[in-house]
């Protein structure tokens, strides 16, 4: 099955374990956000704990999306831990 490499930006404390950007093989058909988080935890076990807490949101092409949204090759993807301004 053909796959491409997806670069994922990790924001806030998510960047502490393995830097601000990680790469993940993505099937040509894409992956829903929820599955992408699982796959990322498999490849980067050190991220697993933070990703598994259910409080991470995905931002695809500068829009925060629900877990069912499919991420496709070429998308600009970032993962957001809980935000806090002020």
């Amino acid at each position, binding site marked *: 099955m053909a796959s491409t490499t997806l670069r994922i*930006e990790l*924001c*806030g*404390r998510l960047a502490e374990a393995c830097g601000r950007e990680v790469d993940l093989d993505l099937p040509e058909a894409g992956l829903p956000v929820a599955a992408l988080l699982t796959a990322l935890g498999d490849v980067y076990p050190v991220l697993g704990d933070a990703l598994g807490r259910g409080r991470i949101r995905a*931002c695809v092409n*500068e*829009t*925060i999306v629900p877990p069912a949204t499919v991420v496709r090759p070429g998308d600009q993807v*970032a993962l*957001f*831990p*809980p*935000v*806090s*301004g*002020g």
Partner: protein
Amino acid sequence: MTSHVELTEAGFDPAARLAAFTASLDGEGAVVSFTGHARGAAKDGRPVAALVLESYRGVTLASMQSIAADAHARFNITRSHVVHRCGAIRPGEAIVFVATASAHRRAAFEAADYLMDRLKTEAVFWKREDGPDGSRWIEPTEADQADLARWTAKQD
């Protein structure tokens, strides 16, 4: 309705912002401002050398604009000014400034209060305290969440 929303890495002067906001008034009777300043100590008393606010591309500014638009939709204010810093902020420096204007004071107070509650919990920033003994990420406190819940509980 006039709304100014700004994200900046540079330091800014809250009093200069209030001066500009006041100069822009068009007959309003009430102006409320809030300024959040970086503190030199964490909640547990550890010293903080800098507060670091991380933002994400256009999403951070868009989240601020959305919050400001909601404030205008919800309260009878005629103008607002929101500026938020990102990057490293030293103790004492301003992090965020909000100003609101309305004919009568209640709307201006409530809108500024609301803007801050939502900026604290929903604006797209990640906040870190850097000190001599390391860094710590800060998430909204229970008090912040309780403050936010006031606005969903009472739909005025």
